[in-house]
């Protein structure tokens, strides 16, 4: 089972015509993690919403490849069958739970929605709460009575309780402390091994994807500028923007000299301007497409195709 987004375009505002996503295609398979990395304004959160059916695409299709249903754009909510397949974990765990509901009701809600009998649902909820490393006592608490890390474990349990094909993780660790962050990533990796769930992980922090991502897609101003196997993108980034993103992460070792990206200018809208391109304008000549730079590894930069490597292969 595979979630396929094809040629997604999203334009916000009738008059302002803010082109948030400009022709993005990607696929998420069961058992693997696709990390979509980008900065504010890159369109990554819009892609997550489109995949979850919370945002209608202006054009393009969202489909399940094995069964072929789903249809264009999805529309708000989507069909009940669709909701069972995709679930979401949000950035702010405490806010993503209903403050007036006990944890039990929040975790059970997806099952109730599917019409499952209460005793069976209760059994499943208890199993999931144990699987995310929490004590069953937490089920009787309210969101305000649990820590951020616990709330995120609850959100993960709720996302997985109805056995979805794909879980969309929108900045799942951004609001958590560093040690808690590590444990949540370990938990997610672990649950994936056991349940075979696929993750579409949205993040601004390229360093946090190393543990979880199978594949990485880098978004920049509404476009995917590079994508490939996680190791290839992280160890051998080809697009100047990917290189800037990776080099901008401070190295957690005082012996490694780090200078960041200090000289890169910005567009008026605040996004980074990639001026380190060795052949400015060549993208327009060759079209905005992605070029193959390695096995299953593409970059939207003609110069990213290493001529020496191209000659030997």
């Amino acid at each position: 089972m595979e979630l396929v987004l094809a040629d997604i375009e999203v334009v916000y505002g009738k008059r302002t015509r803010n082109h948030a996503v400009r022709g993005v295609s990607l696929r998420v398979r069961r058992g693997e993690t696709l990390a979509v990395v980008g900065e504010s304004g890159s369109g990554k959160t819009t892609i997550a919403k489109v995949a979850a059916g919370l945002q209608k695409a202006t054009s393009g299709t969202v489909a399940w490849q094995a069964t072929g249903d789903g249809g264009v754009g999805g529309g708000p909510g989507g069909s009940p069958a669709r909701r069972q397949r995709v679930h979401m974990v949000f950035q702010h765990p405490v806010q993503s739970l209903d403050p007036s509901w006990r944890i039990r009701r929040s975790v059970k809600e997806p099952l109730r929605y599917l019409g499952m009998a209460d005793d069976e649902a209760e059994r499943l909820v208890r199993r999931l709460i144990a699987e995310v490393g929490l004590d069953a006592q937490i089920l009787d608490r309210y969101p305000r009575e649990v820590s951020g890390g616990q709330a995120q474990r609850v959100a993960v349990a709720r996302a997985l309780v109805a056995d979805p094909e794909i879980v969309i993780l929108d900045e799942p660790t951004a609001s958590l402390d560093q040690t808690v962050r590590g444990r949540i990533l370990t938990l997610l990796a672990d649950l994936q091994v056991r349940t075979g769930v696929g993750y579409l992980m949205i993040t601004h922090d390229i360093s946090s994807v190393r543990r979880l991502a199978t594949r990485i897609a880098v978004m920049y101003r509404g476009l995917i500028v590079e994508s490939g196997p996680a190791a290839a993108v992280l160890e051998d980034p080809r697009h100047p923007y990917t290189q800037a993103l990776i080099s901008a992460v401070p190295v957690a070792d005082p012996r490694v000299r780090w200078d960041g990206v200090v000289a890169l200018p910005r567009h008026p809208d605040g996004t980074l301007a990639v001026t380190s391109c060795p052949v400015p304008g060549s993208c327009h000549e060759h079209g905005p497409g992605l070029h193959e730079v390695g096995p299953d590894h593409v970059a939207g930069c003609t110069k990213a195709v290493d001529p020496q490597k191209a000659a030997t292969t």
Partner: protein
Amino acid sequence: MSLLTVRGLSIQTRTGVSLVRDLSLDVGAGEVVGIVGESGSGKTMTALSLLGLLPDGVHVSAGEAELEGRRFLDGPRMLARPNATMIFQNPTAALNPTMRIGAQLVRLLRFLDRSGTDGSAGRRRGDVRERAAALVSSVGIADPAAVLGRYPHQLSGGMNQRVMIAMAIAARPSLLVADEPTTGLDVTVQAQILDLIRATVAQHGIGVLFVSHDMGVIAQMCQRVAVMYDGEVREFAAVDDIYHRPGDAYTRELLASASDHPRPEEVADGTRAG
């Protein structure tokens, strides 16, 4: 000699809950000293206490602090206003939302002229708007006129943090307290702000107390770092020692969580139930 010396600092709430216990550290001139820890570890309370900015119901219960050899904090009493300024985690919220950037800077400069904290009261009659423009361009803002005419909500977080840094150095402090100054910013913007802080330290020779939860930022910004956990300093040493010869179990856990590869113990922490 140290620029800032803090000895035996303890912070409590009105109801007697202890937030920080017996904290001692020092910062030299031109040095960046970090405080690293998680939410609730007391690192922000420590920073706020040095500027007399503790929230209502929270007070210093013991300890003392000196800046440039002058004692300014003695237990619950603030003896004098230290020549220190602060930048915050959310720069957009720290600026006045109802005033243009230019007006805020002009007001600050006029206040500083009047109070004469840098000993030049009344002398600097130059056009205050020109000085405001010079100040924003000194923090790497390419088009000062455009920024001065904007409101904070019209600028990005990175741009607002540059404005905050400009305001902080306008007062010519000897100590800058930075509380998570790049948390919430994009990584490329963070890199630029960190570089600006480095350049500011080098240019003005000020000391910086740098509060962060990010082990990467601390490693690259600081010469020494205090690791805080549950209100106490677990370790205070040079960054190289902390990162390569950590003496404390909590420090090792922080380092492991910041690295790319999970450490083996994590498997046994309960997350692999079943």
